[in-house]
């Protein structure tokens, strides 16, 4: 087990390194030198351009040096918690992202748990009641859930809320808590708003989970040991939970790994529609105005989040099912 974890950790470090390369590429993508662009906008808005300040910025980001030096400089800063400077906000990036990232994590993980719990319950129901009316309804819903893009669900929900309840269901906080510091009241207020993004994000993921759980459990239920247990007179509920469900759970856990990138994808888009104070709107805005340090930091952190999440689900799976530890040698 330890060997497995060590090997997976090694792989993760490699992957994280590759992610930093991608994020750095994003910084370098826009044509031209962003500092020049920044100076131009400053000049255009009538501000005096401070030559000295520009020089110091140039030195700080190593714009006069070759690319690999710039990368090293940047990654050195990132490792020390300095993510660069946001020219759009005139603030260090690290001051902007952490609260947003925390909320992103909160939304994504609650959505993951929501997806899991609902997917599990409905999946078990669908498998044990195969071809019942309920099964058909859930199958139909999950097919539609897979086909509708999240932002469309968000749009429709927003419209319904606005049109029929005359309320704006976007955002994560009520007006009075928007800028207030964290408190118990603010937390409760967030929970009250969280259900909309949860449902929107959850529909697609849950649909996949239901189908996986249903298929796995159906396979298990056909196996002879189930018949034996039933013949011995084991109570149905006991029988179901004791063996088939546990075995069917394995692939379920491994799907958490790939569900995470999907959830982060969805969260990014719907947060723009629902104007959630998470990464989405800020990232979109940063990309629009080519505020590249900010954008790259988001991409770096979101990818890191996914990779770590995948690692956790891998380890969880190996712990659940010893066969995986040995098969992946």
């Amino acid at each position, binding site marked *: 087990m330890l060997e497995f974890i060590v090997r997976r950790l090694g792989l993760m470090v490699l992957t994280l390194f590759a992610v930093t390369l991608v994020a750095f590429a994003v910084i370098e993508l826009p044509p031209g030198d962003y500092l020049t662009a920044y100076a131009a906008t400053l000049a255009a808005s009538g501000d005096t351009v401070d030559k000295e300040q520009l020089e110091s910025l140039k030195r700080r980001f190593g714009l006069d040096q070759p690319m690999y030096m710039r990368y090293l400089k940047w990654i050195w800063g990132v490792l020390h918690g300095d993510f660069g400077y946001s020219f759009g906000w005139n603030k260090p990036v690290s001051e902007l992202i952490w609260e947003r990232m925390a909320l992103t994590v909160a939304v994504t993980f609650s959505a993951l748990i929501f997806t899991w719990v609902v997917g599990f319950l409905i999946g078990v129901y669908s498998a044990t009641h195969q071809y019942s009316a309920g099964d058909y309804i859930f199958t139909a819903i999950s097919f539609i859930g897979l086909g509708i*893009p999240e932002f469309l669900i968000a749009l429709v929900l927003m419209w319904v809320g606005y049109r029929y309840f005359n309320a704006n269901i976007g955002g994560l906080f009520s007006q009075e808590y928007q800028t207030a510091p964290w408190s118990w009241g603010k937390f409760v207020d967030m929970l009250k708003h969280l259900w909309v993004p949860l449902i929107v994000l959850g529909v697609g993921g849950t649909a996949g989970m239901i189908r996986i759980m249903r298929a796995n459990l159906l396979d298990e239920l056909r196996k002879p040991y189930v018949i034996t247990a039933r013949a011995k007179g084991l109570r149905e509920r006991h029988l179901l939970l004791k063996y088939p469900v546990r075995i069917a759970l394995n692939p379920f856990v491994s799907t958490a790994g790939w569900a995470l990138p999907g959830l982060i994808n969805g969260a990014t888009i719907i947060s723009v*529609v629902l104007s959630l104070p998470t990464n989405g709107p800020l990232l979109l805005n940063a990309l629009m105005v080519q505020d590249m340090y900010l954008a790259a930091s988001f991409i770096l952190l979101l990818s890191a989040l996914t990779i770590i999440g995948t690692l956790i689900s891998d380890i969880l799976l190996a712990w659940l099912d010893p066969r995986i530890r040995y098969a992946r040698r």
Partner: protein
Amino acid sequence: MAAEERQEQLVVAERAALREEGERVFVASQWQLMWWRFRKHKMALVSGAILILLYSVALFAEFVAPYDPHKYDVKFTYAPPTRLHFIDEAGRFHLRPFVYGLKQERDPKTMKMLFAEDRTKIYPLRFFVRGAPYKLWGLFSADRHLFGLEEKDAVFFLLGADRMGRDLFSRIVYGTRISMSVGLVGIGISLVLGVLIGGVSGYYGGAIDTVIQRLIEFIRSIPTIPLWMALSAAVPKEWSPLRVYFAITVLLSLIGWTSMARVVRGRFLALREEDFVMAALLVGASELRVILRHMVPSFLSHIIASLTLGIPGMILAETSLSFLGLGLRPPVISWGVLLQESQNLRAVATSPWLLLPGVAVVLAVLAFNFVGDGLRDAADPYAR
């Protein structure tokens, strides 16, 4: 006694029928078997018909759309969908559906412009009417449209009008062309990349395989939307619409090829061990011949199935990016570009038909999913 005899005759007849069908199955080609299997999947059949319809609309967009999608008229800002009628005021039934004239009046209280039917005027809807001139595929000049109104002064908006009074139905029709083809072009590029890289990975195995598999795992572990957003934001603003379109599709397939490569690799690994491959090698067939003549045909159907399942992802990605304003930009018309208008919640609240392009997206995605499912089942005609 008679009953028993009849029973026996029935059994004999049944056996004969079975044998006949068995023989039919034995001599049928692989594609024949696949078609029989596919036919059983009713949803896939219906979805296949929908896809054919959507692609014909995309092909003949100029002809199907009653109006020029760029023709604007602020008079008709947010005009609601025009109702088709069969029965007129006098209660007479018309076989040919008709629309009433459109008149505007100001609400005396709120001073908002309201649209109402002008019941004094009746305009029948006709097929193959003359309308705005267009050039089909940029080649053939024509002015016939599939349907429309003959009278020049009358207008009808089947699905309403948008912010600038443009006909939403015509715009969705034109959007079909872009949105449905992004999926095809994107999946085409993914296919080439996937088959090449996956084939190399599966055929040679060993270190190359490990490296490629790690690469694929890496690409799949990055959340794609933020990355796509970053990459498409880097597409220069001054590029022509066509170049932007290709840039976006290439970006989409840069990530899309991974699933294709996985399928191809898996098939290669499985087939490499098959007896018929060994036999072909033993009789002296070249490596290339073994791959192209013996291996590819046996997994072609699987590739087609996963191609079909890959297209909806592309369509959704393009829609999402364009929706966010990072993908295709007006004046290009795609479903995502059209949905951008529905970001304005107030506009959607009063004119919900702005959400209709989303229905087109869902329809296309679901249809591709069902056809893909059907094809995947059919790809293995021997599996029960």
